């Protein structure tokens, strides 16, 4: 895999999966209140 492809893999992973993790942590920290 090319270096440029690696960089964009990381960009996608950080934004999409990182954003998802933050929103799940938000949900868990709130005590899953509705």
């Amino acid at each position: 895999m090319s270096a440029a492809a690696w960089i964009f893999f990381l960009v996608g992973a950080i934004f999409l999966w990182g954003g998802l993790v933050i929103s799940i942590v938000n949900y868990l920290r709130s005590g899953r209140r509705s």
Partner: protein
Amino acid sequence: MTEAAEEQRDQFGSKLGFIMAAIGSAIGLGNIWRYPYVVYDNGGGAFLLPYFIAIATAGIPILIMEYILGNKYRGSAPVAYRSLSRRWEWLGWWQGAVTFLIGTYYMVIIAWVLAYLYYSIGSQWGSDTEGFFLGDFVGLSDSFWSVGGIQLKVLVPYLIAWVIVLWLLIRGVSRGIQLASMVLIPLMALMMLIIVIRGLTLPGAGEGLSVLLTPDFGELLNPQVWIAAYGQVFFSIGVAFSIMIAYSSYLPRRSELPNSGFIVALSNSGFEFFAALGVFSVLGFLAVQQNTQVNEVVGEGVILAFVTFPQIINQLPALNSLFGLLFFGALLFAGLTSAVSILEVGIVAVRDKFGLSRNRAVALVGGLAFLVGFVYITRGGLYYLDTIDHFINNYGLVLSGLIEVILVAWVVRQLRNLQEFANENAYIRLGSWWVLALSTITPVLLIIITAFNIYNEFANPYEGYPASGLILLGGGAAVLVIVVGFVLQAFGWRRSTEEVSR
């Protein structure tokens, strides 16, 4: 008093149940078979920039707006839009009719997936996978208007698919839709994980991923790339289907909504990015096996799933059947959780307005969709499915989504009220960005997309199909759903607003 008047409104069993059902709805076949090609075809890694911007300025804002509409007015789309303004109930029925029509052919695709799950055992498609799919399986006729008879190989899985989906729908929101999502979505994610890991360990995977992700920054100046990004986000997250309005109406009053929107949208987009890694790593493998370039084997949609993937499975060194079962199993689970949400839109709408019991509403909506679906299991069915899908997406979903945001932001001017409603219970408060995205960015982009679609329709007739087919079937379907919207608005309400939202 109507049948449903004495029943309490259906409700999800938990907040997690709602989130999983919404993720199950958003993640569908398109995440696996459409997104990877869209990235490849629109600048590779560089596409991620417009894609992220589209998620932030359209996908998440519209999704949250639909959650608020459903939860605030505690009803299906016709109830929500009618609550905004009595004259706009038809918009909810229009979206409901669009979603219903999508459901009629979505069930046929699920039937194909079910059949291919069976054909995976021993790779029964043989070496000519294209000939098997188009010839033996769907039995595609020679020309558009050559309808042919019912294709028995599709009919049997079609009946099985409907039995499964009707069973889930009759069980209701918490014991059917929620339960299916809580079980099938984690299973599907696990199956995709195995597919991606296997794909990454195959020879040629690196080449496939390089083709997917190597950026072409010049493409960022191409307006079509930005249109593709907004189109992908719009269809993929599933806004304007009025599914999310229906689902959030099944939440307790004043539930937390914005953070749920972020979880659902990012789960959907995170999943499709992940799936793209798996798809392009195995496409790289196929290119190596066929001694050709990755560009020569890439594809999307029906052909990717039912022609290219069987080719890939044929070429695997070991456990071919297992890989086939995993791939078509993942497609099946993604499809089923979306199909129930698609059909639920019509069910909840007729229940809200006409006061039907769940069983009767499922029988009415499901029975009608089942009958209409027979059009697509004829030998000409693939032409009709493809045509109606194209028109109903471009002139049903996009156009009704455009009118939806214009209605809320500019006609009834309710964005600030909806924002205040959501912020009362939000972990993430909706700021001015949300209002700006919905009042300006989203409508402008949806107008551009619609103008582009209309121009393209005349410049390049879709797939080269005959004008009679495109106008009668495609245009006819797009107009029919609007007419249905107005006709259903004209009927009187059998239930009061209090009965609906109870």
